[in-house]
């Protein structure tokens, strides 16, 4: 039970840390100053949530683990983040669609977690839920603006949507860990999260005059630590300083 909770919290924490780091790479590169600040704020929200979750995971793990050792001393095969979170930012359409698909998933997942039987997980979820609601508002507005924008913005959004769709199946692929935590009332039912997600996402995609992809092919592997080639480069950058100077303090 304890090990499955640890595994589950690591998955949540890793996804938040990695997508937060990805977004933080846009700091100073936003299309306009205001969006640059918004994107960086959202990156900070993800890193904050990831830190809370990895703090919890470290306590479950014991043996002197901390959020820092989990974030900076694990290699890619030990990272459990969803594949979509490690994908490079691409153009602004790609970043927007990636964030939108993930934000809506987080919205319904964490809505469920605010009712978790696990008190610490519940409190972490309650703390982040309002931020997640704001993330959805932010990215949904960009979906509409760019999907229903110019011919070029529409095409770029549709291309990004078609490419990213294959990474959404993994959101809802429940394994033994999810099933056990669902039975114990710790984790929400992923099939319920899926149907809410699909309704919400379809609604915005239609309003944005985009076409919902029909492909059912789904990328997978993150649960076993099998990642795309992109995660290694991301971790190399993210982990360089603490690995090079393990005793550094600031």
């Amino acid at each position: 039970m304890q090990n499955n909770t640890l595994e589950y919290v690591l998955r949540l924490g890793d996804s938040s840390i990695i997508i937060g780091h990805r977004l933080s790479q846009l700091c100073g590169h936003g299309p306009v100053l205001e969006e640059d600040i918004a994107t960086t704020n959202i990156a900070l929200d993800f890193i904050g949530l990831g830190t809370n979750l990895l703090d919890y995971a470290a306590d479950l793990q014991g043996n002197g683990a901390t959020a820092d050792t989990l974030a900076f001393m694990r290699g890619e095969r030990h990272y459990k983040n969803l594949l979509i979170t490690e994908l490079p930012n691409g153009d602004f359409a790609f970043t927007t669609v990636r964030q939108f698909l993930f934000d809506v998933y987080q919205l319904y997942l964490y809505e469920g977690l605010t009712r978790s039987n696990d008190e610490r997980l519940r409190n972490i979820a309650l703390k982040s839920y309002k931020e997640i609601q704001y993330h959805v508002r932010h990215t949904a507005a960009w979906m509409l603006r760019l999907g229903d924008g110019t011919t070029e913005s529409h095409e770029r959004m549709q291309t990004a949507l078609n490419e990213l769709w294959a990474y959404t199946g993994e959101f809802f692929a429940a394994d033994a860990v999810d099933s056990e935590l669902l039975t114990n009332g710790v984790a929400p039912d992923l099939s319920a999260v899926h149907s809410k997600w699909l309704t919400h996402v379809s609604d915005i995609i239609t309003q944005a005059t985009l076409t919902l992809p029909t492909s059912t092919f789904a990328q997978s592997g993150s649960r076993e630590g099998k990642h795309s080639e992109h995660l290694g480069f991301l971790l190399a950058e993210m982990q360089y300083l603490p690995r090079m100077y393990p005793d550094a303090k600031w």
Partner: protein
Amino acid sequence: MSENQWPVWEVFIQATPGIPHKHAGNVHATDAEMALQNARDLYGRRNEGINMWVVPATAITASTPEDQGSFFDPANDKPYRHPTFYKIPDGVKYL
């Protein structure tokens, strides 16, 4: 570059219920929703208030520097226009 700039919106924040909104600054945005979100990210992240307005800067009519004399100077020698002769009850906070 400047012709590519998005329109400017002025941002007003109400700190607590019952007091006027105060000018906080401005943001660039293509529409009202984006202006509100940008304002939230620039001016609302540190518990600044409970309500926010965004107004297109072009909707504001301002007095000019040349107006300053006729608008404001006549008040200088009329201290009775300032309600400094009244006792304010202790309970009144926002006057």
